[in-house]
């Protein structure tokens, strides 16, 4: 099978995601980048599952998808909260506490 390609794809997605988290100032975009990472993880898991012929990977992936959904829900809720108070979703505005 073509394991390495998938792993490579996952790795690339992971890096893009990480880049997004670090580079983006927009909370929503950061959330999306994190989703990218999670997807790269899923790809990893599925790839390994296929290679090893075990279902654990699939199960894990399913859980991740479910939990990710919950996370996004909470995340967007928080973003809305911030937006209501600050009229912005740029995380750099959120630096009241420091030092």
């Amino acid at each position, binding site marked *: 099978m073509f394991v390495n390609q998938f792993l490579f794809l996952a790795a690339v997605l992971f890096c893009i995601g990480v880049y997004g988290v670090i580079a983006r100032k927009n909370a929503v975009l950061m959330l999306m980048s994190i989703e990218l990472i999670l997807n790269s993880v899923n790809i990893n898991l599925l790839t390994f599952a296929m290679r090893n012929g075990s279902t654990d990977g699939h199960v894990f992936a399913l859980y991740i998808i479910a939990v990710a959904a919950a996370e996004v829900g909470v995340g967007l809720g928080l973003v809305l909260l911030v937006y209501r108070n600050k009229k912005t979703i740029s995380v750099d505005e959120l*630096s009241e506490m420091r030092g």
Partner: protein
Amino acid sequence: MNLLAAETEVLAPLASGWFLENAWLIPVIPAIAFALIILIGKRLPMKGSELGVASMLASLVLSAGAAYQWIQRVNSATEEQFVEPVIRSWSWWRSGGFDFGIGQHIDGLSVVVLFVVAFISTLVQIYSLEYLRGDRRYTHFFAALTLFSGGMLAMVLADNMILFLLGWEVMGLCSFMLIGHWWEEDANSRAALKAFFTVRTGDVGLLVGISMLYFAANDWTQENLGLSGFSIRGISAWALSGEPNSTVIMVAAIALFIASIGKSGQFPLHTWLPDAMAGPTPVSSLLHSSTMVVAGVFLVARLYPVFFVGLDILGSGGNLIMFIGAITIVISAALAFVQNDIKRVLAYSTVSQLGYMMLGLGAGAWLPAVFHIFTHAFFKACLFLGAGSISHSASHHSFDMKRDMGGLRKVMPITFTTWIISTLALCGVFPFSGFFSKDEIIDNVGNNGYNTFMIVGLVGAFMTAAYMTRATYLTFFGEPRGASAGHSSHESHDDHASHDDHSSHGPHESGLLITAPLMILSVLALGSGLLNATPFGESWERMKLWVEPRAVEVVDSTYSGGPGESLIVNVPSAGEGSSKSVCGTSTPEIGVCYAPKLEHAKFKWSKAMLSMAIVFLGMVVSWILSMLLFTKRDARLVGLTQRVKILGVGHRFLVNKYYLDDLYEKVIVRSVAYPISSAAYWFNQNVLDGILHSISNLTRKFSGWVYKNIDQRVVDGTVNNSATFTKSVGTAAQPTQSGKVSQYGALLFSAAAVAALVLVIINT
């Protein structure tokens, strides 16, 4: 040599007695009295003074009894027999196998000094009853005086060096309290401080010396005598046993000698003595006649074998003790010429007399030196008390001869007579006591082959005669001046205000409480010499018989006898003409001996006459000069020192001592060097004083520097800096806490990535 084979006979036990056995009471009584005075003195009718006097009387009686019984003991012994000292000791404390004893060691030497000390102290206390009447610290004064004598007495009969040290230090402390008695005046308290501190500096020597001797001697003494290495007897025996390593004992002896230099005000540590005049006159007389300053000499006499071996006394070409002694004699005598303060004249004369004693000890004239302690005590005490009597009753508490005295012989006859007697004694004029001791010293010095030193001694005698004549002239002859002429009061030397009730009427003879001691002392100054009057032949040499230890005792270690009994073996005495002692050089293997064998000079009238002539010459010259100078105001002499450069310089060297002192005081205060003065008087012995001060000054500055820079800056600084450092690290780390999420994320991931990278590299 087979000494065991030598014929031996058992001797009858030596006589002893209650007074000898219980001599340890002598210092204890004053100690108790001290405590009592401190506690209840103020409430007593005579403010505690009676306690002091009574205790001193008691010790006087006891020591007299001891002396008497000692004489009995000696008489009970045969000619060659070693008179066992009466030694009793109790274990004081033990630690780590060390046993520190406490006890008494009574022999001729201690008996003599005990008697002298108790006697003089008693008189001085009686004298003080009048002299310090109404003083603001009357009680304290007597307490200190009593403890002072107690310390001296304890030191004298100590059987081991620890107890000796104890007495020594107690005396130092009391001298501090007494000299600084009128401590409201800064000068007095500083003088007290100086005295204590100088002496204390010497004490380092004592500490070191005792320690070295202990560790060097202990094994030997334990093994052979069953005594600890602290016991004086053990050390003496060890020193003469031929056992000790020469360098160790030499260093030890030098260390001890440093101590006695400090205590006895020998050159170069003599500078504290004149300042000690700040104390009340009775104190000065006690300090200078029999106690404090004698302690140093006593130390040398007590541990004589150590010095004998360590410094190679009787060796060719003199030794440290002699040099110091000789230098002291001349230097201080010279200083005595330019003093206007009568007490300071006496002080310097004391120093130079102590020089004689040292010289004698150093030259192997042990007995004459001790005898000089004896006689000197009486006439010097008499002189000081006389001076006190003058200032007390005539010169309105001033001691300035030029300003406030003169012509007193009419108004105070008793004082005058006693003074004259003592002066003659001091100068060593024939029938008076000084002659028999001092001349004896000079004589023996020469006899032991140190002619240069003998000459120094004679020069000293000349100077002594001269400056005493000068002082006498200024005080008692010529016209009354200043206060003694009844002039109005002026700021006076020791102004203890409560004394001014005397100033109302003019000069007069002092009361009985003062004159009685004077008379008693003068009698002794006249007569005490006869105790060892060599000129009149063997039978008169009582001191030699009673005090000088029989040199040789060789105990067969197999023989066990009670104290005092011993097997006597006749040791072959030294070869003819040699002045070496048998014990001094070597000891028979099985033998122990406690004192070196010393030769005595045969008395020759010729020598005596020579020295007498010198003395008289000194007196006459000085008399004429003083008369011309002070009364006739002879034009050729007055202001001579101003006219003749060289004389002027020399004169100033001497006179300016106090001027210099002030300078150096100022140097302390401002702590600025005084280039001109130090350059001009750099070889003036008084510079020593300056050195003393500037050393202390230097130390203080240095310590200040250490404290400021090392302690506060370096040591403490590192601590504080480390604190600030941690804080600054915090500051450095703070920017990471920017509050920006994306930066947090970046940090988070980059850290993870770096860690992963590193671990990947090191693990694969």
